[in-house]
Every structure is written in C-alpha cells, then in structure tokens.
C-alpha cells in the first residue's frame, strides 16, 4: 500500500516544481530567441517564440559594428582578470594567516572584513570618486580594478578561510618535520589541496567584477574605456527599439560568466551558504 502511495505525491510535487522553475527560466529563453530575430520579427504582434530563420549575423553586427561591444568586452576582460588575480593572491595570504596563525586582532580582522558587505558601493561612491580623481586614475582600468578587488576580497578571504580550515595543518607540519621550509610545505603540499578553493574564489571575483555597473558607470566617461555593463545600458538609450541587437549583445556578455558559473556553482553554493549560515 505504502509503496504505491509515495510515487503519486512525488509526481505531483515534480509537476508543481516543473511549472514554477519553468516560469522562472522562461525569460532566459526569451533572451536567446529574441537575439536571433530580425527587426520585423521583434516588432511583430503577437510575439513569435522562434524566428523563422535564426539571424546569427545579429551577433557579428553588435560585435563589430554598433555599440563598441568588442572594445567593451576586452575592457571587461582586462578588469575582471586583474581583479581575479589580485583577489586570489591577496585573499590566499590573508586566509592562510587567519587559518594557520594565532595572532592578536584576528577575530576583529575577520569580522571587519565580513561587515564591509553591509555597505553598498553607492554610499561610498562620492568620496571614492574624489580619491580616484586625485590619484589621476579616472578613465583607467585601475580605477575599476581597485574597488572591484576590494569588494570581492571579503568573500575570497572567507571562502578560502573555510577551505583551509577543512585541510588539516598536520600535513604541512609533517612536511616541515621532513625538512621542508614553511614556504615549501605550502607550495608543495597545501597548494594542490587548496586548488579548488582558489579556483572557486577567483572565478567568484571574476563574476562580481564582470557584473559591476556602479564603478564603471561612475569612473569611466570615455567611450573606448567602457566595460560591457555600461556599454549595454547606453546601448539601450541609443537604440531604443532594436531589442534583437540588444539581446544579442546581452547574450555575448552573459556567455563568459555563465560558463564560469556552470563550472563552479556546486562549490560556490556550498561555500556561500555555509558562510551565510555560519555567521
């Protein structure tokens, strides 16, 4: 009796969740289908789900002609890769220190790092603009790399700190007893074990930086220095009704982060929710 009853409930539950999640991800399909439409199809009423002939040339149009997407793409890539590199290097140093050493001020440091997550960039952007300007950095990649790094560092430090706490220090100690220096123990024994953590936190920093709008919108005024986020928003006001081009440009900007996200989502969710629940 019981065996027969359970699958029915399971089927109903699956049906309900299919509808909910289906509705949640429908906008994503709208983006893909719109990006392949022609202008005539975009302005057709009622809207059609799939274009008659997929217009792949929309992608090459936005890439090389209207809107400077290619230049913006390269700018975003430079900023995000630099942020990723800085975050992983500096974050690993700090996380290693917090996980393997006892020192005065450790708890305030870790707490202070996480508390910064409370501040939106908006309430600091005015003074930051002054600082960036006085350093002569407006309209440079560095003006975005510095704040993006700082905004990703808290998560990097906490993610890596969590990973390091899961790796027993006895492994490094054993290596040091065998005659390794601390640096050798770290590079030869610890680093390979920590690699997934480093990759996860690095890609997280990349994604955060790739998605930044507020710094890029505030510190960059020259068209050739714009990042993708800014290019996309100004695209909107420039070509108000060319939704097919805008969706194609949007899709180009989504693909890199989406691929990275697929690679790390399992670890990221684990790290984020563990951090959220622990604190």
């Amino acid at each position, binding site marked *: 009796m019981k065996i027969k009853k359970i699958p029915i409930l399971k089927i109903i539950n699956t049906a309900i969740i299919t509808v909910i999640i289906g509705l949640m991800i429908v906008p*994503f399909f709208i983006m893909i289908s719109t990006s392949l439409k022609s202008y005539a199809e975009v302005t057709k009423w009622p809207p059609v789900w799939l274009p008659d002939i997929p217009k792949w040339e929309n992608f090459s149009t936005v890439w090389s002609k209207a809107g400077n997407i290619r230049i913006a793409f390269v700018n975003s890539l430079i900023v995000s890769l630099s942020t990723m590199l800085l975050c992983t290097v500096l974050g690993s140093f700090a996380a290693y220190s917090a996980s393997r*050493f006892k020192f005065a001020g450790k708890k305030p440091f870790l707490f202070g790092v996480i508390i910064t997550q409370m501040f939106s960039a908006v309430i*600091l952007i*005015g003074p930051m603009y002054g600082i960036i300007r006085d350093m002569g950095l407006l309209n440079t990649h560095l003006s975005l790399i510095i704040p993006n790094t700082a905004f990703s560092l808290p998560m990097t430090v906490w993610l890596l700190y969590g990973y390091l706490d899961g790796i027993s220090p006895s492994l490094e100690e054993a290596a040091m007893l065998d005659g390794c220096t601390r640096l050798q123990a770290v590079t030869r024994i610890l680093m390979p074990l920590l690699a997934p953590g480093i990759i996860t936190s690095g890609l997280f920093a990349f994604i955060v930086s790739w998605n930044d709008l507020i710094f890029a919108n505030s510190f960059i005024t020259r068209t050739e220095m714009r990042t993708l986020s800014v290019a996309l928003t100004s695209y909107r006001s420039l070509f108000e009704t060319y939704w097919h081009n805008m969706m194609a440009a949007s899709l180009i900007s989504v693909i890199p*982060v989406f691929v990275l996200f697929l690679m790390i989502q399992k670890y990221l969710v684990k790290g984020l929710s563990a951090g959220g629940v622990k604190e």
Partner: protein
Amino acid sequence: MEEVMFTELRKRHATPYALIAPVLIFMIIVYGYPLLLTFKYSFQDVSLIGSKSIFVGLANYKRVLTDPKFYNTLILTLKWTVLTVALKIGFGFILAMFLNGEIYLKKIYRFLVLIPWAIPQVVVSILWAWILDGQYGYLNYYLQKMGLIENAIYWLSSPRLAFISTSVVDAWIGIPLVTMIFLSGLSAIPDSFYEAARVDGANALQKFVHITLPSMKKVILIALTLTTIWTFNSFNVIFVLTGGGPMGGTETMMIRIYKETFGKYNLGMSATLSVAVFVILTALSIFYWKQINKDED
C-alpha cells in the same frame, strides 16, 4: 640556539600581520577612508567637482530631517524593501521545501533554479525591460491571451506599476540564493526528528509547525538579515529599468544618493543621506542580531 629560536619567534609574530596587510590596505582605501570622508562631508557644503568645501555644522542634517521628500524616499524604500524581501523569502522557502522533498530530477532542478542568479543584473534588467515593454512585450500578450487584462499595460510608465515591476525583477534575481540558504538549513535537520514525529502520529502540517519551523528559525533570521540588507542596497535593477522614475515612483534611497552625487554634484547632501542609510542598516542589523542570539538562550 636560543638566538635562532628568538628570531623564529619574532618572525612568527610578524608573519601573520604581513600576510593580512595587503587586504587591510585595500579595505582602508576602498571602505575605511571613504567612510570617514562621508562623515566629514555630511558636515560640509561640498561639491563633487571643484574645490569648494565649507564647514556648515548640522545644516545638512537639518535640511534632510525637515525635508518631506526625505521621508517620502525613506517610506518608499522601506515599502519596496518589505515587498521585495517578502517575495524573496516566501518563494525561496517554497522552492527550498520542494527541492528538499520528494521530487524527480532533483539535481537538475537544484541547478536550474540558480539560472536567474547566474545572469548579470544589468542583463537581467535589460531583458525584463523587453519582457515588460508596453508595445511588443511578451507579458502583455500572454496576460491578454489568458484574459487577465484587456489593454496593453505600460509596466514601467506609471509610478505604482513600476514600483511593483522593479520589486518583482529584483526578487527574481534574489530568490536563488535565498533558496540555497534555506536548502542548506533544511538538509541539516536530522531525519530522526521527523521519524519520531511520525511515530507520535503527527500529520504533515504538525511536522512542519513543530519541527521544520523551529529548526529553521535561526536560518530564517539569517536569510532575513542578509536579504534585507541586500535589498535595501539594491541599485542595478532600478537604475537600469526606471532610473528612479516615473515621477519618483521607484526612487529609493540608493537611487536618490546616486543622483545627488552625480546628477547634482551635491556631495554634502549625498553624504548626509549616506549617513542616514548607515544608521538605518546598523539599527536593522543589531535588531536581527539580537533576535538571532535570543533564540540561542
């Protein structure tokens, strides 16, 4: 030998600080110093461009606190936050319950639910601007087809509708993370709790009220805290979808501060508003923090 140990000891004392120093420096440049400047500017008449900066005492605060527009913005922000947080927490909880329960294709659904979160907020906002478009948007078409509305609705053109639309879009982005937080909380409840309740003859509702909710109390409070702070600070969705309009219908504190800074270049005023936000968020955090700790006693 003694000397060697002494240098080793000294080294050990300096090493941890040397390792955290770079992070500290970044934090000071990007958070600490600007935060100090914000407090300083809130007592000054200072412009974003030019070098004018005059000490004005509490004049900015007086202006903010006696300005009806400030309270309008504040109430609008609180309403928007409450609505959006309710959507995120409500849907997040329901989804987590399903994803933790008996369903087929669990792994696939756990992955699919993350998609709205994996797309950059700017792109999501542009995408929704298209879906909500009054002339050619999909939403109007399907609502009309289902007979729910008669005429096309311009979702972002009236203050009230824009308020709701931006809130729903912000919730759409925020739900995945809330779901994941709840999911990790739900999966941490031991099966033996439910087993014991089943033996005692509890039904599904009783199990939910007496086991699931009490076990989840702390996780719910943490999710509420984080979601409230994130939502209060939301900027991208509103900025791209409406820019605070129409007629100030979506002008939350964050949009107002940004406009004050880069639209009017009035750094003194935006700093004062920032301090107000800072006070509100701190008060909120302390309130939640106390609730979380009260639960532990």
